[in-house]
């Protein structure tokens, strides 16, 4: 099958490539752009490990063809930290609150949480749990993931983080 030229912005930089129409976005990111942060977990659009931010939406890059993303503005976990290596507030929050165990789901969790906080600066615990319901953590570390997102939200809003009593 003839290959198509695709051009997109990935983590603020132009990215081009030749792809077969059947090339999934996750394969383009991982294999052609060498961005191996987004993971292939279930490969059936359930687990959310492949989540990337695309034109202001969280999408599962295992369920989209690279040609569909032609012209899009994409952000992956590699684009979260500042150029000088300063962690994004969500990355800092996941570290501080122990929001990761094996780390496999973390790139998807952080990229999803980024969009959640862009849409809702001060989510309740229930809104956080609903907002990340498309991301599975097989270590079942949800408690600290929720806490990390609360920590990041507090920091973004400039208020002290108060841990809820357990």
């Amino acid at each position: 099958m003839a290959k198509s030229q695709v051009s997109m912005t990935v983590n603020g930089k132009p990215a081009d490539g030749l792809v077969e129409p059947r090339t999934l976005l996750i394969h383009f990111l991982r294999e052609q752009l060498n961005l191996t942060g987004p993971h292939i977990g279930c490969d059936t659009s359930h687990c959310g490990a492949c989540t990337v931010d695309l034109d202001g939406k969280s999408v599962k890059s295992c369920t989209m063809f690279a040609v569909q993303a032609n012209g899009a503005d994409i952000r992956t976990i590699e684009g979260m930290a500042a150029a000088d290596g300063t962690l994004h507030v969500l990355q800092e929050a996941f570290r501080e609150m122990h929001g990761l165990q094996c780390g496999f789901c973390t790139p998807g969790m952080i990229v999803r949480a980024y969009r959640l906080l862009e849409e809702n600066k001060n989510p309740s615990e229930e809104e956080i749990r609903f907002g990340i319901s498309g991301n599975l953590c097989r270590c079942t570390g949800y408690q600290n993931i929720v806490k990390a997102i609360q920590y990041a939200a507090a920091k973004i809003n400039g208020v002290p983080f108060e841990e809820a009593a357990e």
Partner: protein
Amino acid sequence: MIPGSFAYHRPTSIGEAISLLADLGEEARPLAGGHSLIPMMKLRLAAPEHLVDLAGIPDLKGIRADGSDVVVGAMTTQHEIVASELLASKIPLLRETSLVIADPQVRYVGTLGGNVANGDPGNDMPAVMMCLGASYQVVGNSGERSISARDFYQGTYLTALRPGEILTNVRIPIPVAGHGFAYEKLKRKVGDYATAAAAVLLTMSGGTVTACSIGLTNVAGTPLWAEEAANVLTGSTLDAATVKRALTAAEAITSPASDGRGPAHYRTKMAGVMLARALASAKARAH
């Protein structure tokens, strides 16, 4: 998992899309959000030779009021339905339904058109559209036509859509102000299809039901419009005995498969339980 090879087409108008589909013939499939089709292609259960991506057609997007109806473009996403103030105020049943479909990432991409047109009895919107008395505007090389949602579903993955036709929008009559509504869905986990689900639209006057419509999801090869159950309830005060008769009438038209979601008799019973809950919720919201 890697799908089979195909050629990708991205028309920018409805006219271009239907002539492409006509020219390419049976091996071409329209692509909406792709969250049903792409998983099928990855499993090689579907292997179209051509995909006609509808995402570049502005005329298929948007939600607008048109007289006594709301018209929702086929490529409108579930996320856009959830966010729509027009729908929240006029037809809140849609938002309630979208919020129990899949998960946030899928709702950003999955479309109303894909949900209603692909004929999967597990999809939630078809029964809701039957409940609301919506109609589907479709267009093909032989022209445009409108099909009632209640006449659209013929079997599993079998609809009134003819080869080469695409759905352009869904036209939904705005229910009377003060109507009660509910979509109750039993599912095993986030992202699952319904074990059973029920949609209810209810108009009440002085404690008496003046109009009622009921749709059922995933308890037969097609979505179901439970006309007889609704007729039983119309004119009643939703007293326990009448509700019980309506549940029996609704359960009687189900014929679910026995699968991972439970044996058939259980799913039939759950259709009744979801309907009972939806009726109670709709009654509480009606004023």
